[in-house]
């Protein structure tokens, strides 16, 4: 049984008051996420990522198509006991403290009494909220709110969690903590479905990704498959590179780009056509010394930009 499954999931909105025109937020999305995966749901702003998450949480209803979580149709209340959701830029209740909020939600799950208290306490420790837990949420910073959001998403030891932009608002320390948390969740057997536009996080965490652009699925699969591990060039770092040596190498087309790293140390980008050993020999003849030589592979960012550029611009439905 897949953890998450969608079939031709589509959402049209009507925009405009006097003569409503349809707007395609999501066009026929079909994907599946296996249990225990960390799945990255990527795409530029406005691609339809949040719409997809809302459809999965049944905050909006699909125009057509279906979706299932843990084998049950979306909206099944029993399934909601086994999942967790972190919305983007979460806002909870100003007037409650962090503790009270988690206790409120814990009550909705059915936890009572001492169990509720210990669970809430441990959770707040896990996400790094200490004495602030007694403060009203209106006094919380963005980063702290994000932590509370994550806490309420994993409150019930879910089997599947949905994170919408989990890293937003966090400083580098916080981001590392969340990355580690996601890995811990995976180790516990939880399926993690998160949407992001921070590609480096996806690269380090995800086993599979989907790229959404213009409301349509542009790519889906294992990262290793998508990026094809094609070498597109070399990066050569050397010291002692003189200006004339550099100019000559550029003139010959051996160096596409030279980035100075300080004190005559350069990072040189070599195209595929330039054999690195020859370029190195030429530079060494002028007095340069090798520091490192690495192949350049396509990054997710390159792939991403390529896919997105090909996406349709017009989100309106074609007139019949």
């Amino acid at each position, binding site marked *: 049984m897949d953890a998450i499954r969608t079939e031709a999931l589509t959402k049209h*909105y009507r925009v405009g008051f006097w003569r409503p025109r349809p707007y395609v937020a999501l066009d026929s999305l079909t994907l599946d996420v296996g249990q225990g995966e960390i799945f990255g749901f990527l795409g530029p702003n406005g691609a339809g990522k949040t719409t997809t998450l*809302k459809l999965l*949480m*049944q*905050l*909006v*209803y699909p125009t057509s198509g279906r979706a299932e979580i843990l084998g049950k149709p979306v909206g099944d*209340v*029993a399934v*909601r*006991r086994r*999942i*967790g*959701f972190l*919305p983007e*830029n*979460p*806002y*909870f*209740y100003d*007037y*409650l403290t962090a503790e*009270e909020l988690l206790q*409120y*939600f814990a*009550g*909705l*799950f*059915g936890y009572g009494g001492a169990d509720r208290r210990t669970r809430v306490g441990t959770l707040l420790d896990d996400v790094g909220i200490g004495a602030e837990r007694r403060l009203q949420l209106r006094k919380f910073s963005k980063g702290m709110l994000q932590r509370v*959001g994550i806490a*309420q998403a994993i409150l019930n030891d879910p089997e599947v969690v*949905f994170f919408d932009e989990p890293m937003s608002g966090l400083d580098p320390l916080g981001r590392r903590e969340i990355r580690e948390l996601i890995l811990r969740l995976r180790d516990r057997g939880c399926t993690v479905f998160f949407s992001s536009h921070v590609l480096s996080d996806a690269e380090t965490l995800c086993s599979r990704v989907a790229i959404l652009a213009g409301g349509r699925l542009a790519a889906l699969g294992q990262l290793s498959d998508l990026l094809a591990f094609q070498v597109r060039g070399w990066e050569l770092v050397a010291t002692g590179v003189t200006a004339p040596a550099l100019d000559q190498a550029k003139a010959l087309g051996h160096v596409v780009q030279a980035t100075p790293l300080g004190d005559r140390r350069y990072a040189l980008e070599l195209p595929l056509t330039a054999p690195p050993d020859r370029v190195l020999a030429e530079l060494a003849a002028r007095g340069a010394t090798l520091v490192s030589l690495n192949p350049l592979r396509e990054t997710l960012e390159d792939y991403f930009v390529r896919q997105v550029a090909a996406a349709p611009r017009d989100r309106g439905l074609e007139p019949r």
Partner: protein
Amino acid sequence: MRTIAHVAVNVFKESVRDKVLYSLVAFATLLIAVSYLIGQLTAGQDVKIIKDLGLAAIATFGLLIAVFIGIGLVWKEVERRSIYGLLSKPIRRHEFILGKYAGLALTLFVNMAMMTVAFYVVLAYMNTQFPAEARSVWPASATDPRMLLAIALIFLELLLVTAIALFFSTFSSPFLSAALTFGLWVVGHFNADLRNFESVVETRTAAHLARALYYVLPNFAAFDVKAQVVHALPVPSAYVATTAAYGIAYIALLLTGAVVIFARRDFK
């Protein structure tokens, strides 16, 4: 059911921590206490004035609480997006609506109880200020428990107003909801005049329209037995039963409507 109670308690907590509510209740209690002084101004009518003023204060402030909290009940959650976190939990949409309503009903009940207690305290004090002969002339004793009947009907009336405010809150902004709710409250009080309209209008269609509105618009005038209670006139229990049943039916209708609207809403 447990879920509904849970949401209700949360609404109550929110209202208790709401500064606006505090000021309203404090002001109302103060007014009731001050009514004692106002009573001194019109000789011979002291008790009547305090009763009139007290009941009116309870009704008015109750109305303000019902409307101003009611219009935001659903709208605020949707606008501020706190609904996203809540609806992803094991809670059905109708449990959300009913929980919100129950929470406001609880808030209203507690506030009205506080105002009623203040009211009776002032009246009990009044009782001690007058000799027995003066008191024997009053149509009803100062601390007449029958006023609780009027207050109970006011409470039911306000539960209906709350249901109206909640209903509008499921789909329209606070400003519009407040205007519509107040509008219906005013029209509902002129319900009897609507009946007389029929004999005054010129065309048959207008008469039919007046009659239709008379039946459909909420009849708030029926809940007002303040004058009866102050003058110690009888209030038949059949009347109370019919009015209570009417209130409950109308509330049920509005809550069903709210649930239906809310159940199919997209939260963009």
